[in-house]
């Protein structure tokens, strides 16, 4: 019962700190919060959104079930931040100048193609859907476990859905990030503290836990782990595909448009991985130590909740709230990004003359439609969902070369981007589904082959055509902004350039 009280208090705080944000009227504010957040907010938002609630349940299979392999998240999370650092400058400058609210819209500007926008937007929605479903299910499971079966998983899931839909539809990006600040701080301070406490309770400390593992279960301390035969390329693949794809999720990328400066984004790219690494290392060490316990090892998806319950009701209540905070933070970001994308990247592309009021209405209605569809679909087997969620990484990674080459290579063009994304995704998905022998034997995941395909197609297409005129203008935007560091605004310095941009569009 204590767990429910803690979760209810947590929900009340989320609503209380958001009260002033409810009732946004402008679509831009709903989508980006008008670039009003600084470094702490963006850092905690990226951290809390990026670590999913299912880390503690579905994905505990790695850390508890196999040990060391779960540590791949540490390096891949760091690699993800390289993407964030690299895209920061141009995303901010073009985003602010052209009032851009989504990753797909940014690609439309860069490639001057509504089709690229549509494909990136739809890819973001489709590949994100399994994560949303998995998070809803996680929330149901946590409610069920925390109340000893009193609240069924379906009812628990519905409570989570109502809470998130309410504050996302009312407050948009501002509500999402305001809640993320609280959720992220709670996850980091309380989450890390509780998990450290559990390590001391279960093994007498990190050193003592490692000693026991070396003596009793040394196979859990190296790759690939007990009972698994995998080539090293598998380890490389999961780090590369997850690391490069990790920042391409629209629900993470779109947070950049809420930032108030390049400095804030780059500082966040330093802070978010450091707090994320501390949080995740403690999570991983606890998971590896829990392997020594039969109950945890046999049911890794319940291991963290079970272990918290063994320590005491207060720790169980805190652990339930930590998982709920982690999950709600991700879900709110996903819902906000999906609804914004449906309105801005799909509806606006199909019907160009949509008013801001209608766009806002579409976004708000989308929030409820997404919630309803997910509530129905979330009755499927969670095991199948994990596979679909992991599969989605093999798809989202195709956006990586489109974004990075688009931002750094003038020759990248829409033909290459479209063909690369579509063919790369087909290659990746076909190899994932058919699983030919070389995938297993060599260890490189299907996404790696898809990524190489997309990149090669984009390079060939890039050299097949001269650089497009609008690209030169976009590069001029960057050069002009750089040459006027914190001085005069771009338009004031070079009004002709703005008019050239308008003309070329």
């Amino acid at each position, binding site marked *: 019962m204590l767990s429910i009280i803690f979760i209810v208090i947590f929900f009340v705080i989320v609503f209380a700190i958001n009260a002033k944000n409810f009732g946004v009227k402008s679509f831009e504010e709903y989508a980006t919060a008008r670039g009003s957040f600084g470094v702490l907010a963006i850092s905690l938002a990226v951290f809390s959104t990026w670590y999913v609630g299912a880390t503690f349940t579905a994905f505990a299979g790695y850390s508890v079930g196999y040990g060391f392999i779960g*540590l791949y998240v540490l390096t891949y999370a760091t690699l993800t931040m390289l993407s964030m650092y690299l895209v920061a400058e141009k995303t901010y400058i073009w985003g602010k100048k*052209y009032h851009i609210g989504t990753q797909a819209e940014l690609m439309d500007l860069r490639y001057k193609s509504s089709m690229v926008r549509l494909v990136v937007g739809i890819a973001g929605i489709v590949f994100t859907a399994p994560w949303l479903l998995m998070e809803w299910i996680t929330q149901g499971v946590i409610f069920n476990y925390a109340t000893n079966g009193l609240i069924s998983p379906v009812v628990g899931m519905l409570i989570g859905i109502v809470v998130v839909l309410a504050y996302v539809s009312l407050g948009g990006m501002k509500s999402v990030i305001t809640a993320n600040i609280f959720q992220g701080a709670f996850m980091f301070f309380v989450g890390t503290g509780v998990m450290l406490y559990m390590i001391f309770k279960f093994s007498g400390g990190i050193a003592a836990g490692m000693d026991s593992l070396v003596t009793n279960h040394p196979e859990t301390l190296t790759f690939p782990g007990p009972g698994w035969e995998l080539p090293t390329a598998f380890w490389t693949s999961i780090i590369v595909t997850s690391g490069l794809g990790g920042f391409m999720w629209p629900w993470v990328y779109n947070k950049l448009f809420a930032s108030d400066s*390049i400095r804030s984004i780059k500082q966040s790219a330093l802070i978010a991985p450091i707090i994320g690494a501390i949080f995740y290392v403690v999570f991983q060490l606890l998971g590896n130590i829990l392997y020594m316990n039969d109950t945890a090892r046999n049911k890794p998806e319940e291991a963290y909740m079970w272990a918290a319950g063994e320590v005491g009701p207060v720790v169980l209540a805190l652990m339930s709230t930590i998982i709920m905070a982690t999950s709600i933070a991700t879900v709110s970001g996903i819902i906000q990004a999906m609804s914004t994308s449906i309105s801005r990247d799909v509806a606006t592309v199909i019907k160009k003359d949509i008013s801001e009021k209608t766009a806002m209405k579409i976004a708000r209605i989308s929030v409820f439609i997404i919630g309803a569809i997910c509530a129905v679909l979330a009755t499927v087997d969670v095991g199948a969902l994990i596979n679909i969620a992991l599969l989605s990484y093999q798809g989202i990674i195709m956006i990586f070369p489109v974004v990075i080459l688009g931002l750094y290579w003038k020759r990248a063009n829409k033909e290459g981007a479209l063909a690369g994304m579509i063919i790369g995704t087909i290659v990746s998905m076909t190899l994932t589904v058919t699983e030919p022998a070389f995938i297993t034997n060599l260890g490189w995941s299907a996404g790696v082959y898809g990524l190489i395909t997309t990149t090669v197609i984009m390079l060939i297409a890039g050299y097949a055509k001269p650089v497009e005129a609008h690209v030169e203008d976009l590069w001029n935007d960057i050069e002009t902004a750089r040459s006027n560091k914190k001085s005069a605004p771009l338009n004031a310095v070079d009004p002709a350039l703005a008019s050239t941009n308008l003309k070329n569009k």
Partner: protein
Amino acid sequence: MKSIGKRNLFFAASFIVLVLLASFPGLFDFSNKIEPRIFSLPFSYFWQFFINILIFLLLITWYLVDAKYGDLDIDIEPLTKVQLQELEVRK
């Protein structure tokens, strides 16, 4: 390193080399063992932590160099509503 392009290339390449040390076949295999244990951690764990600490230090250096050249304080004036509408019409 005044040119932001060259700077990005240098730091991104260094970053990738470090990630490869923690993950690439051959380079990772060297660290995939329990002994020698350092700070009570198995060598596999220590190596991953060590590489990630180096990456964080590299990121901090990158940030400080960017700050030194003033590349963090670039700002831009958004287009006005009228300019945006004109942009849409032309498109």
